[in-house]
Structure formats: C-alpha cells, structure tokens
C-alpha cells in the first residue's frame, strides 16, 4: 500500500501527530494516532502514513541515534518530521508541484509544526501531560483536533496588498509557506523601532501596568499594529504571545473578523460565509473520530474544550478590554471567563488580559495564583489599569502613531531583504508589497540558497563544540539577480538585488552599505 493510492484526492497534504509509546500491540495501532488531517481519510491510509514515519524513525536511529528522521524527500512529496515532545511526533506530508508553485523549504514547514505545538502547549500544557491525565487518549484528541483545525483555518497570511487576508485552509486546500515566503521568517517577532523618548514612555507604561496588579510576577507585552514595542517576558514566551496576539488580538486581527459581533448575536447557523461550512464540518469530524476509535461511547463530547484559536471570537469591549467567550462563562455569572495561558519560563498559569486603544494593544499576564477571587479580582485589576494607565496609553499611542512610517516603514529602496536575529528571535523584512515585485526566479534562487544555509546551520548546531556559523554567500543567478546570504554571530541577513550591477564587488558593496546603515555594521567584513 503506497502513498500514491491515498493522494488521489484533490489536496496533497497530510498532517498527523502520533505517540510512539502507544499502540505497540497488533490491532491497537490506531491508539498511536492523536491527530490526523484530513480526518476523513480511511484508517488504513492514516496508518500507512504513520507506519512509514515510524519505520523511518526507527531506521534512521540505527545511524543517527541523537537525531532521528527529519525529512523524507520523494519525487512528488516531502514528509516533514518534528519530534515535538519525546516520542510524540508531528509529521506533515506535502505534495510538490512546479505548476501550482508548491515548492517548499523544509525548514519553513517545520517552523509551522513548531508553532502549532508551542501555541498548543501555551494554552493546554504538554501533550504528554494530557495523555498522562487521561491515558485513553480521548482528552488529548478532543483538544488537538479543534486546536489544529482552528490554526490551519485561521492562520492569516498577509497578502501582497496587506488588507486582504486568507487562511492556510481555503476550502479543502492548505496554503503553506512556499518559496514565495523566502523573505519571511516564521517563529520570530517583528519589532517596532522607536526613538529614545518614546522608549522611555513605553517603559514607564509597562511599569504602571505591572503596578496595577500589585504583584511582582506579572508580565506585559505592548504591541503597536502588528509589531512588538516592549515585553517583560522571556524570549520564548514573548514569541508565543506575540504570535497569538498577531493572529487574534491586534486591531488588524480583530478587523479581519469584523463580522464577529453579528456572528455571535445571530448565532452560527446564519453565518453565510464559506468558513462557516468548514467550521461545521470540523465540529463533527472529531466526534466521528472518537466514535470510530471507540473511545467516546456517547456522541456528546464529554470534555470541555476551549478553542483559543477559534476564528472571530475576540472583540473589543466598551471599556477597551478585549473579550471572548472562548473560555466559557464563569459559574453562576454571565461574565465570560478570562483566558489563561502557561508560561514556559515560570511554569505558571497566568490570566491573559488584553487592552486595546487604537493601534496599541497591551497584553497583561497575571498569575492565577495571585488572584484569589477569580473574575471579580480580574475586573478589579482592569479597573486599576483604566484608572492608572489610560492617560499613559493615550500618550504612547499618539507618540508611536506620529513616528509610524506606515506599512512601508521598513522598506529600503533597491533592496529586498530579511534580517533575522536568532538569539532574540527577532526578524525584519521588506514589506510584502515590495517583495511581490521580485521575479519567481529570484525568489526560487533565494529559497534554494536558504535551504543550503539551513543545512549548514543545522550541522553547526549538531557540532556543539564547533564555532558559531559565520558565512557569506553571494550568487549571481541566471536572471542576473544577486542573491545573498550572510550569517554572523547568530544574525542572518538574506537579500535579493534585482537591478544590480554585474560585478561581485558591487554586490558586496551594496551588502556593506546596508549593514552599516541598518545593522550597525553587524554584517560588515572588517
């Protein structure tokens, strides 16, 4: 039974999560499967994907015990592996096709898997912990399925025109990052550059916010538009919350789900948009899955499952705080429960409060343990914030708006670039609207070059004793564009220069100028 037999359906994507510690006996193989997309694929086909994956994990461990299978490249498919937790694997199978531009950079796809897992852990804790809580597997399945489906459906990619959004999941087809996204880096934070004066204002705002809680272990994140202004969280927690904020909380994310009010009031049945129908489908699918697994005897979902990535569930309340009913309603009241998240750094559960004023979004994280009387306590904190910080918020917003250069703020004329600081998980890139002016050939060439760099980076990572990767590659492609990668001290710079002179010296000069002007000379040779 080959994969070809199952890939006849229109979409070329399979995505599964399985646990190697489960279903080790014959006849129990289905126990391994924690998630499978598409869910309506026959079990035999699902098991075939998982069987191959498991076989190759075992096989590659013979030679590479420290790092098992990462990718299978076949003529028409790529299988991307990610061991999210020990023995818990995420595998994505994508179809390759030149015609439909389905040419993938493996690392970019793996970053999607990592992002899904990180977000899941932030909201629900680790997969292993949930499996230990309920070894039957029903609990984890009932969480994973809606979560990932919401992610796939809802993860918005900015279009070239920036004001129209689309999902990974359009109809039945997944739109994953392709070579056209080679000047983007998933899994990084995009920052707003601000002046000294503004920085001081923002800092004092953050202090005021934290003082409102009266607890020292509270954290805050400040965003302007879809850019991070300040954070008091650790690097990884910042990334997760930033990702979530850009997906669901910023004005941009809220407006893309503008119909949310009417949707909520009128009820889901009247929703005319196409998304509604896929939503309905996904709602029933997990139940199907459990029933056929024989896990849940009743058709009612026995678990209360919060769906933090659910589309169009956040809106701005009258007081400026963002509200959602995702986490249900607190017992005995009509107040929506405040969302909670796990922080990796402190391993603590925190309430997530978001306040929005125009383009400014504040995210406040308060330890659940520090609020004794639940929602009542939270609303007290909210009041404090309104009282103490409103004015400061106003001022900061005004200041940042004045300094804001618009969507092309970080465009550098003549350059198409991506700058990544892998220590801080920060990236900056040419605006999407400018990247679309590049030819397909240039983008393909950079995507290929990035794939080479990815390999160099990963082998340098495995050489723990080895020095940090320091390299420079300048390629003049067939279409005469210069495609450049430069790595130094954990910083990465990728560039496409299309209308450049033919000499190598010209290209390196351009790189040098860019480095001196925008990167404090980090990429300069001397």
């Amino acid at each position, binding site marked *: 039974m080959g994969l070809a037999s199952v890939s006849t359906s229109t979409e070329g994507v399979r995505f599964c999560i399985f646990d190697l510690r489960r279903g080790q006996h014959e006849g129990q193989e289905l126990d391994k499967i924690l998630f499978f997309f598409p869910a309506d694929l026959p079990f035999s086909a699902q098991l075939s994907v998982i069987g191959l994956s498991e*076989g*190759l994990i075992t096989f590659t461990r013979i030679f*590479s015990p420290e790092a098992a299978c990462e990718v*299978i490249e076949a003529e028409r498919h790529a299988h991307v592996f990610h061991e999210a937790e020990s023995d818990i694997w995420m595998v994505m199978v994508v179809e390759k096709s030149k015609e439909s531009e389905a040419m993938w950079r493996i690392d970019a796809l793996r970053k999607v898997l990592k992002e899904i897992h990180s977000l899941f852990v932030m909201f629900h804790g680790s997969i292993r912990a949930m499996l230990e809580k309920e070894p039957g597997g029903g609990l984890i399945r009932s969480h994973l399925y809606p979560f990932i489906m919401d992610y796939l459906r809802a993860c918005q990619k900015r279009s070239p025109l920036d004001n129209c959004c689309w999902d990974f999941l359009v109809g039945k087809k997944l739109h994953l990052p392709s070579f056209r996204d080679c000047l983007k880096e998933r899994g990084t934070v995009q920052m707003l550059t601000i002046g000294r004066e503004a920085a001081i204002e923002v800092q004092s705002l953050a202090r005021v916010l934290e003082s409102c809680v009266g607890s020292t272990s509270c954290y805050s994140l400040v965003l302007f538009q879809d850019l991070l202004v300040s954070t008091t969280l650790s690097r990884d927690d910042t990334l997760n919350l930033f990702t979530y904020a850009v997906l669901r909380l910023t004005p941009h994310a809220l407006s893309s789900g503008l119909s949310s009010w009417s949707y909520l009031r009128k009820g889901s049945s009247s929703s005319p948009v196409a998304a509604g129908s896929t939503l309905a489908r996904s709602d029933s699918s997990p139940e199907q899955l459990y029933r056929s697994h024989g896990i849940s005897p009743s058709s009612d979902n026995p678990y209360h499952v919060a769906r933090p990535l659910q589309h169009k569930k956040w809106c701005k309340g009258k007081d400026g705080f963002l509200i959602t009913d995702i986490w249900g309603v607190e017992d005995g009241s009509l107040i929506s429960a405040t969302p909670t998240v796990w922080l990796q750094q402190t391993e603590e559960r925190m309430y997530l409060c978001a306040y929005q004023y125009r383009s400014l979004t504040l995210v406040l994280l308060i330890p659940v343990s520090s609020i004794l009387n639940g929602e009542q306590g939270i609303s007290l904190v909210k009041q404090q914030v309104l009282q103490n910080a409103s004015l400061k918020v106003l001022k900061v917003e005004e200041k940042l708006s004045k300094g804001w250069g618009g969507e092309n703020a970080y465009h550098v004329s003549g350059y198409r670039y991506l700058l990544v600081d892998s220590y801080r998980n920060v990236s900056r890139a040419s605006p999407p609207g400018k990247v679309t002016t590049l030819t397909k050939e240039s983008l393909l060439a950079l995507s290929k070059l990035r794939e080479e760099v990815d390999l160099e980076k990963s082998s340098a990572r495995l050489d723990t004793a080895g020095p940090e990767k320091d390299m420079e590659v*300048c390629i*003049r*492609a067939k279409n005469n564009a210069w495609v450049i990668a430069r790595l130094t001290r954990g910083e990465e710079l990728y560039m496409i220069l299309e209308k450049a002179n033919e000499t190598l010296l010209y290209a390196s000069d351009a790189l040098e100028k860019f480095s001196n002007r925008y990167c404090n000379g980090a990429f300069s040779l001397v």
Partner: protein
Amino acid sequence: MLSSDSGEDPMPNPGSNPIPIEDQFSCIVMSDNCEASATRNGSLGNHVGGEIEGAEDKRREWGRTNSVVEVEEGTPSPSSSGYAGERGSSGSDEDEIQELTIDGYVDADGGPPDSQATWLPGKRHVDEDDASISWRKRKKHFFMLSHSGKPIYSRYGDEHKLAGFSATLQAIISFVEGDRVKLVRAGKHQVVFLVKGPIYLVCISCTEEPYESLRSQLELIYGQMLLILTKSVNRCFERNPKFDMTPLLGGTDIVFSSLIHSFNWNPATFLHAYTCLPLAYATRQAAGAILQDVADSGVLFAILMCKHKVVSLVGAQKASLHPDDMLLLANFVMSSESFKTSESFSPICLPRYNPMAFLYAYVHYLDVETYLMLLTTSSDAFYHLKDCRIRIEMVLLKSNVLSEAQRSMLDGGMRVEDLPNDSVPRSGYVSPHMSHSRLPTDSPERFRESYGGTGGPAGLWHFIYRSIYLDQYVSSEFSSPINSSRQQKRLYRAYQNLYSSMHDKGIGPHRTQFRRDENYVLLCWVTPDFEFYAAFDPLADKALAIKTCNRVTEWVKYVENEIFLQGATPFSW
C-alpha cells in the same frame, strides 16, 4: 560444484541469448585459446574457480574473469600492497579507531589522494554487520540490492550477513512506491536512494556532501556495475525476481571500493570531465598521431593514460566517449592488479556509450603507471589489437612519449605558486614545470619551500578549471596549507557543495558565486566556455581574489595546449 544459488536461478537457454552474451561467450572461447593459458587471478577469480562446472549458468563471470590471462595464482607481487589489505587489515583498523575517538564517527576514506599506499583497496571490515556499533558509525555506506531485497554489494560488512538490513532498505523504497523516495535526512545523516529498474542503490552518509553529489556517486556505482555486466543483467530479474546477483560480481569488491575511494580525491567524479597529463604539445601530438593510425584500422577508441590522467585519446567516435565512461573504465583497469601484470582482453561495457552491449578492451601497461586501452566491438580482435599495441609502443618509445609522461607525473601539474605576476604572460613565458627546458633546480620542492605556507598570490590555495567545450578539467596541485589528506578531502567536499549549488536542476546554472566560511573563500564562475572554481584563504581580500582568478583563467588559456587534449589532429581545433 554448483552453488545452491545457481539451482534456483535457471539461466535462459543459450540459443535465445541476447547478442552481447553470445559475444561474451565467444570471447571466452577465444581467450581460452589464447597463447597464454587462462588462470584465475586471486582478486577476481577465487569465487568463480569453484563454479566452473556451472559454466553455462555463469557465463557472465566467465566472460569477465577469463579476460585476465597469465597471472600467477595466489602470489601477489610485492608492489601490490592492496592485496594484503583486501580482507581486513589490522593496520587500517587502528587508524580508524583513532579517528573514532576523535570525532565519534569512523571515516575510512582517509588516504592522501595520490599516495595510494596508505589507502588499502578492497573490502574491509567483512566481519561487521548492522548489529555492530563500528558498522553503524562508518561515515559513508554504499549498498546495492535487488528489488526483491537481496543484497548485491555493501561497502562494509559481508553482504550475506546484511540480508535483513537489505530487506529493510527494500521495504522503505517499496513503501513509498507510486512515489519515489529520493532522500531521508536525520541529523547529519543522509540516506540517498536511486532506483535503476530491478536494482536499488542506497548511500547512507554523514559526510555533509550535498544530495546531488551522493546521488551522482550512486549513478557512478551503478555505471561501474554496468561496465562489468551490462544492463542485460535486468533480464535475469525479469525471469526470476529473486535472482541472486552477488556471484556475478564476485571478486569485484576491489573495483567498487576503489571507485568509492576516488569520490574523495578525484574531481572527475563530480565535474563529469576528464583531466590530461600535462605534456608538451608536440609530445601529445606524437602520441595522438599513432593512436589515430590505429583507430583507422577498426579500433573504436584508443586511449593512452597515466593513472587517471589522459595522455591521448582518439576514436572513431570520440565525441561520444563520455567522461564518466572514461572514469569508470580507468577505475576498472587500475583497481584490478591483474591488468598490471600482463596484456589482457576483457569484455567491458561503456554505460553511457551503450549500456546493453559489451565492447572488448585490450589493456596493456607500458610502464608502471602508463597503460594503453584499445576498445573494439569485435570479440576476436585480440591478435590485431596486440599488433596495434606493439606498433604504438614502438612509436611511443622512439618519440620519448613514455619518458616525457613519466617526467610529467613526477613534476605534477599547475601550481598556484607559479601563477605569473603579469596579467598577460610575457611572450615566451612558459611555467617552469610545463617547459621542456626546465632547469634541475626548478624542482617543485624548492617552490613549495620558498612559499612556506601561503599558497599562491592573494591567498590562492587551489583552483579547478573545466573547459565545457572539451569536457576536460585541470586542477592545480595541492599546495600548502592544503597538505593533509583530510584537508584535501574537505576542500573537495567544499567544491562539491559549490558545484551542486551552482548547478541546481530547477533554476541553475547560476553565473557567479562567492562563498566564504571559516575554512575558505570560494569563487566560482560558470560561462558558456568554462567553469572556474577557486579556493582562497578565508581572510582573502575579495577584490584581490577576483583579480587573481582572472589571472588564473588567462594563465590556463595561455598553457591550454599543454594541459588539454585539443584534438586528434593538429587542425581539428
């Protein structure tokens, strides 16, 4: 004394055989009637010796092994140190254990390129199998197996002990069938697959060579197998899917291991071009003229080589002699000790020329390093080719070609230290080692000393120039600081990376590439006329490096008559 395999692998009735096999059969008869009685060479014939009674079933082996004549059995010559190491050598084991402790992985490839004395040909570590830790830690495995999962060849370990492992590889390939698995990546390891009809080839490597390089190495291994057996071996699988091919390749381990070793030091394996021995234009012309003479008398290809370098080459259809075929043929001849000891007439197949049919190669060593190969389609041309060889040998001796070739081997090729200072060489300037009037004091040693560790100008360490029109390349000699075999191998791997980066199938070839990392500055140009690869000190100045590259390409053009084979006749170019 039939092996059990031959019983389950009934061969077709001879009458219905394809022509090549018939040819081969007649060749056996012919060589049996040769003036020299056919005895079997230790390296090739041991396995076959016991199966003579199964002659009809084993014609292929016969054809191959019978080709070797007049070899004293079991007494390898003192010079052929390779023999001793063929079945496991304690000396090499020690080396590898040492390496194992250094970087955790065993690298058996560490032999300096041209001093093959430290590299022991033939299969080693036959006692290992997939359960041994040492086997698992080898840096680069190569496997050949049949589509039913039967092992055909393994670089390390006994094929028969690896039957289970082989079945696993087969399962992986067939599981993804419908699609075709190309590559599995796990940490530093790559598993590369190549399916050639009923024959599967797999490489498992942690050498960080790019996928494209490993794949083309598998292609070469497959080509080497075809060179020995032709593609008609596929028919055996059509008749019996469980056909066991190992006996057909019995004794040829040494050919494959030598090819695999060449992946580390021979740029021809990734450039798909051949290289020439530097010779004065007139000297090469003299050699070419006599070869041309012979080619006109019904010889398909006449090739005179010094180790892996071509002295001269002519043929009725020279254009169609692919550089890969030359590489595989030269490897076949050089790796088999038996060719060195007597004139031989052997069926061989040139996979790029015609993968289905055998040609016949008359091979004779004119001195320790120089050998003549005359290829023909006729299986009964032995005496004719022998006559040709005698004529050629006489002319070569008379015109001093052989002594010039020997001297050139000693002197070596282009050296980065010798790069002329002027951008345009002064008229009459010829680099010392190319010129006939070289003074005795101009020894390479003297040069290397005087440059003490800096390489050439502007930090130039090494270069390769490939002429696209000629299908030939010239590679500079290794100079300080690229001294050890480990450094040389690393440089070749860097070149391989550069090559595959430049020649991407989808979007390539690129025009220019500059690449700097902690080891080198690498520069590459691909133009319609040539490809140029150069390695510099990692701190080299970009502008100076570019200038230096331009000087090198001018230098190469200036001496091209001495380093390249320009054509069979003086006016053909």
